[in-house]
């Protein structure tokens, strides 16, 4: 075959097939690229949405977990303006951080953030919660619906922390009698206020929106009537004991028991032979304090109080209601408040609130509690 003819043949072979194949390949490549791009884009969008949803769910779960595991005693000791942080990793990739900030004495802000450990993608949400209002209409170291006797060695004080202010050292009903030892000079006598609100049973029998009967049912410690006790902080195996004789440590000397503030209920008379404790003490009968005793919180009695020993210090508030709704019964001597030894009563709203901290759970603020932060 000559060179001419072989060149012509090669030229003919090159013609249509090559163009067709090239066109086909280009179209295939474009189609594959478009499909891959579309799939990857769709996957990226779906992944982004799924990640965002997962993080938001994790952040909200952390928020509500913080609310459900709320430590009332711990939060009640948290200073206004301070923030407590906690971090958790709920699975291998998502880390959540929760901040609890005390904004006022009653309002807290809980902020939770969920973030992937491998990236900076995060979601952050916030919830405002509020402690139930301790609806005490009068504020004083001693609020009494029965007659009160104050001895020469009794001192009244007011908390220096800015929790609240007292209406007066002693708040009485219009009918209740007040006898102050003559040895106390007028300038040193406790301030006294007579207020009809002090004649309202709800002032005594309702604590933080909870009535006496319910409080009695949900008491952390229920002692027998006519009991004698010397409450003392007790630590067992490095943990604060939950025994009936352990009412926590109001002095903060034993860290394990600093947050124990039980609700103690006694269905009859009670004699305290000394010791220390904190929380809320509800006594259906007569309360006698017969030894050196330090208490932080609230004491409510229905048959009077008397002190039989020196070195008694109570910080918070003491309420003395009468056993009967008949105001004339209030003058029965066993119902009186008789503070005749070295006793200091300090009005402290902080300590009074801390006393109810063990069962005081916050609730979310109305209407605009939740917010997503971008």
């Amino acid at each position, binding site marked *: 075959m000559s*060179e001419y003819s072989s060149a012509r043949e090669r030229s003919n072979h090159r013609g249509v097939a090559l163009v067709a194949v090239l066109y086909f390949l280009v*179209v295939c490549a474009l189609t594959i690229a478009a499909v891959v791009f579309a799939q990857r884009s769709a996957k990226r969008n779906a992944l982004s*949405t799924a990640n965002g949803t997962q993080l938001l769910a994790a952040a909200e779960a952390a928020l509500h977990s913080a609310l459900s595991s709320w430590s009332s005693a711990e939060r009640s000791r948290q200073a206004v303006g301070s*923030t407590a*942080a906690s971090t958790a990793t709920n699975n291998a990739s998502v880390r959540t951080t929760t*901040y609890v*900030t005390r*904004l006022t004495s009653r309002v807290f802000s809980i902020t939770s953030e969920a973030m992937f450990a491998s990236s900076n993608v995060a979601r952050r949400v916030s919830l405002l919660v509020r402690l139930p209002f301790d609806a005490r209409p009068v504020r004083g170291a001693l609020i009494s619906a029965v007659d009160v006797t104050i001895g020469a060695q009794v001192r009244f004080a007011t908390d220096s922390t800015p929790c609240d202010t007292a209406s007066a050292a002693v708040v009485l009903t219009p009918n209740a009698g007040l006898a102050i030892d003559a040895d106390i000079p007028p300038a040193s006598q406790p301030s006294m206020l007579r207020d009809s609100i002090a004649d309202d049973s709800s002032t005594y029998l309702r604590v933080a929106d909870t009535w006496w009967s319910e409080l009695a049912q949900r008491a952390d410690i229920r002692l027998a009537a006519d009991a004698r006790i010397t409450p003392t902080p007790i630590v067992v195996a490095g943990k604060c004991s939950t025994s009936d004789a352990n009412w926590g440590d109001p002095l903060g000397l034993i860290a394990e028991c600093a947050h124990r503030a039980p609700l103690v209920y006694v269905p009859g008379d009670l004699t305290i032979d000394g010791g220390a404790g904190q929380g809320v003490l509800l006594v259906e009968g007569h309360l006698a304090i017969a030894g050196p005793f330090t208490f932080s919180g609230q004491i409510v009695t229905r048959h009077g109080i008397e002190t039989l020993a020196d070195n008694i210090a109570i910080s918070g508030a003491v309420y003395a209601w009468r056993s009967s709704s008949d105001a004339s019964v209030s003058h029965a001597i066993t119902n009186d408040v008789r503070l005749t030894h070295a006793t200091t009563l300090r009005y402290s709203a902080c300590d009074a609130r801390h006393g109810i901290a063990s069962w005081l759970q916050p609730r979310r*603020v109305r209407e605009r509690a939740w917010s997503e932060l*971008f």
Partner: protein
Amino acid sequence: MLISRPFGARGGFTLVEVSIALVLAALVLGLVFAVGRRLGKQSSGEAERLAVSEQLMAAAEVLPIDLRGLSPLGGDIALGEARDSSLQLRQTIANALVCSASASTWTVAPYLGAGGRSVVPGVQDGDTAWLLSDDDAGEHWRAVRLRAARRAPGGCSLVTDAEGAKVFDVTHQWSLDLRDSAIASTGAIIRVTRPIRFSFYRANDGHWYLGLRTWNGLSLEFNGIQPLSGPFGPPSDGRGTRFIYFDSNGAGFASGTADTRGIARIEALLHAEPGDSASVRDSLTVVTALRNRR
């Protein structure tokens, strides 16, 4: 020598060969073009599907952000303005802590955003600040109109520790000038809101879109509508691109209900239509539970 061969002896194709070659070439070309066209259409379809998916995803991303934090009890959904074709609400644009305050100016530390990022409040004249007031009678949110926001020097003395500085932007404080005189206590929380309106509307191209109208605090009316996503199927043709409202028990509300305070869940039914051909259709229901329904 190449041209020494006589003409009659030159090699060539017979008519039959040429015809067969042409037929085969036509067949091959036809096949190639058919396949190519089909692939091209598939590619075009994928692009349309992608566009539809992106439009739906855009709506799904945008809507819940503004709906989740609504407070129906606080009046965030305008009375009578929860319709099947539109929804008028208050958008929360800023959250902040009051660090100090006078009757006419509040100095605030905004909440930090996700990842601890600083957030510029972006307050405009006419925006509303909701101030959380907490007293013995309980808590309530008080509405205060704002005039402007400007940067403020100094730190927030209320936030006392480093952990708090991870929640509030204490290094970038803002002064909010008030239109209304109002006393705020230190430690109070504010939420700043501004009206917005989502609507399904028909654009000049004849298609339906989900649009947003923002509030103009100076003219006291909504600005022109801006498209967010679409096109969607028309709300009126029964295919149902629309908003639906439910209470906490799952009972639905009629469009334009006056009882917007009871709304607990909002659903947006989106039926996407990419263009005139409408060869690709997809739908999505965006369900949003209102976190502040109580």
